[in-house]
């Protein structure tokens, strides 16, 4: 690809637009997807391999995320809540994308509302998931 002529102006890019929820969830979709594809996938595989390898390997895996009492430590909470929040955001916005694929929801107002709804869904579901896990 030819190098860009730096004397020529760039077309208006991210910094010139007023940020809206649709732009936020668009880049969040990519960020959460990439995050789950790297950190999430690696942890899922480590978990499965540790259970397959036996009690000692599983203990090593578990020690990284839990205190001696068996409760989650800081790493466990940050990664656990982070990954579930990523999952619910990616899931909600993915469903929104499927609707947009059939041509629905492109009007400015409804598009904005649906983008906001994915964030609300992600927050509510993450809180509900961890509350249920905590009080169970």
């Amino acid at each position, binding site marked *: *690809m030819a190098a860009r002529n730096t004397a020529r102006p760039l077309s208006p890019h991210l910094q010139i637009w007023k940020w809206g929820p649709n732009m936020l969830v668009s880049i969040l979709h*990519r960020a959460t*997807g*990439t995050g*789950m*594809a790297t950190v999430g*996938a*690696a942890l*899922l*595989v480590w978990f*499965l*391999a540790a*259970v*397959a*390898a*036996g*009690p000692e390997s*599983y*203990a090593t895996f*578990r020690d990284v995320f839990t205190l001696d009492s*068996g409760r989650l430590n800081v790493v466990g909470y940050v990664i656990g809540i982070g990954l579930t929040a990523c*999952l619910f955001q990616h*899931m909600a916005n*993915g*469903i929104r*994308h*499927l609707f947009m*694929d059939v041509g629905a929801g492109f009007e400015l107002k409804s598009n904005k509302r649906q983008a906001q709804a994915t964030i609300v869904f992600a927050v509510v579901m993450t809180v509900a*998931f961890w509350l*249920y*896990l905590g009080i*169970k």
Partner: protein
Amino acid sequence: MRSGTAIGRVRGLGSAKSGTHHWLNQRLTAGSNFLLVVWLLISILRQPSFDYASMHLWLSNPWAAIPMVLLVASIFYHMRLGLQVVIEDYEQDQNRVALLVVMNLFVFTIAAVAIFSILKIAFGAAA
């Protein structure tokens, strides 16, 4: 290759015949991911404990091992399609090719480890 506009260079060559393959498979695996992830979240919430014995017992049951293999296949394929788009958007030339190769190695390797591990638990003797 003759010079000219981008459209002039490809005109008359015919379509690649696979233009919608990536797009469609990403949507189809999005649907299967949704069902399998809902299964996984409910399974996690229903676990009595997260110690070794509970986890091993859970995954040695075919009703958990089979959806888990499907989940790994569906999610990792979706993940490969998604990471491919991200790399194609931000990298050019040799870097793009190199990263795509590395990404494929990463995805296929961890998928193999994951599926082997599930089968080892499922087919293994009770611990």
